[in-house]
């Protein structure tokens, strides 16, 4: 029942709802759908140049052109990035959340420090790690030198991508941890006491109480991390600019459309659609998988 009057006044909520709806349709939802259309054209960003439909040409180019190997490696790296980031970030975050869920001296401070990179943002964090991984006598290089080794870090074809993954996890671990902590703090402590009396402690208490009861937090974390990891490329922009074998699908969308000397909107949209297929499959799979594990207290 709507309590705020009848007649014309009944339509006020709907009229107000249109204020957020219109910009959403025009600037987000609409363009998102138009990406599908664009992906079948040869549009460029240069105004005045006519464009036409080219069928599946852009998709064919992606999979069969002379540089198709690069494209497929980018697909592989996208998946590698998503899996490693999602799994390691959440596993570490859960572990740290469990440790910090107990009273420790200075626990508020520790939590604040772990969340700090989220506040500082990708540009500041990226530059800080470039300083840390500076090949010219930076601290990490110094440590490697002790073992008679050295590396170009973000300028190395071998490990640049792994280092990007490391920085990404370092940056957002605190975010996942905060959500896990919220889930942990919602678990009534008498459950653990009862389990303790029944002889369940350590691993079995974790397995049979903690894990099922933080499942909603896990769902949120996993879903956000999967979508985020498959779509993010700002960290790549800051750290390597896609060089040294660090490009992913998300990066390639950006590079094909806005990279230097490139303005192939049709092809970029096709890459965007391929990226979307992966996001969709993994998001749905994660939702089904983790929702089933949730239980009510």
């Amino acid at each position: 029942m709507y309590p705020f009057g009848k007649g014309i006044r009944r339509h006020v909520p709907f009229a107000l709802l249109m204020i957020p709806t219109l910009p959403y349709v025009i600037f987000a939802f609409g363009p998102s759908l138009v990406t599908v259309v664009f992906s079948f054209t040869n549009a460029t960003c240069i105004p005045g140049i006519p464009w036409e439909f080219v069928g599946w040409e852009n998709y064919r180019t992606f999979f069969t052109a002379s540089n198709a190997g690069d494209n497929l490696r980018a697909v592989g790296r996208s998946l590698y990035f998503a899996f490693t980031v999602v799994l390691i970030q959440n596993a570490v975050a859960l572990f740290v959340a469990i440790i910090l869920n107990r009273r420790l001296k200075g626990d508020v401070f520790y939590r604040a420090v772990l969340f700090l990179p989220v506040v500082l943002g990708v540009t500041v964090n990226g530059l800080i790690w470039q300083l840390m991984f500076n090949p010219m006598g930076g601290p990490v290089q110094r440590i490697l030198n002790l073992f008679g080794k050295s590396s170009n870090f973000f300028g190395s074809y071998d490990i640049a991508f792994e280092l990007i993954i490391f920085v990404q996890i370092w940056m957002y671990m605190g975010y996942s941890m905060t959500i896990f902590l919220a889930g942990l703090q919602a678990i009534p402590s008498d459950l653990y006491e009862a389990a303790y009396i029944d002889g369940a402690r350590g691993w079995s208490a974790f397995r049979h109480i903690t894990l099922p009861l933080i499942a909603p937090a896990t769902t949120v974390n996993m879903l956000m991390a999967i979508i985020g990891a498959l779509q993010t490329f700002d960290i790549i922009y800051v750290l390597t600019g896609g060089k040294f074998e660090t490009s992913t699908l998300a990066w390639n969308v950006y590079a094909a459309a806005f990279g230097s000397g490139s303005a192939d909107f049709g092809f970029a949209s096709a890459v965007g659609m391929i990226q979307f297929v992966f996001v969709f499959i993994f998001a749905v799979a994660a939702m089904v998988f983790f929702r089933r594990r949730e239980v009510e207290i």
Partner: protein
Amino acid sequence: MKEAKSVVIGRYAVVLLLMVLYLFPLFYLFNVSMKTQFEYLANPVALAEQIRLSNFAEAWKLGRFGQYLWNSVLYTTVSTLLSLLLSIVAAFPISRGYVRFSSFFYTFFLISLFLPNALIPQFALMNELGLYNTQIGYILLRTGGTGIVFMLMVGYVKSISRELDEAAAMDGCGYVRYLFTILIPLTKPVLATGVILLAIGTWNDIILPVIYLSDPNLAPVTKGLFAFRGLYLNNWPLLASGIIIVAAPLIVLYAFLQKYIVNGALAGAFKA
């Protein structure tokens, strides 16, 4: 439940390791920023000889950080406030079912999290509208009432009693007045979360400014700092000072706001 002493020591050991991993980079950054270029090149990792602040003055002069900071403040404040307003205008009637098809609208608004990347048609549209390289255009792109804050708000409004709507209406309070004077103050926890999530998102955004704000006068701190890096990559003490100029306001602000972020708002909102 008492814990074994070894477990407690283990906990502190892990915490110590984490603190080194998270605080050492900041400490090192600060140390580098106080060195002369000569001192840095001679030995990057040695402690700075003295507290020296001249690099900060130099970086401030060369980097136009005042301009960048002002731009960031403008973009962040305006887009955050507008987004919050739009979120609540959308979330209240949908949460209550005061509009038809409210569950359709709910799904419709959230589906954009999954949909194909809108970046390219969006750029073509902004170009057509003459909004490329304008402050208004960028703010418009960062403003919206349909994302994660909308979702949190819908959940939170459900926890506010419907009888309150009815009582207010009985006293002759209209929809708009109710929404703005009674409901909004009640949603403070979500508003706090929303401010934090939205402000962090816009303040740290680098991709959209790179695409849409090619005019250096319009650059926010992220883009400005990145351009500064391009110019002074061979002068790390200066660059480190620039990074600190950008990071320091955030760290100070965070010191005041962190209890809302870490203990309450962000955490609490996800429970709803």
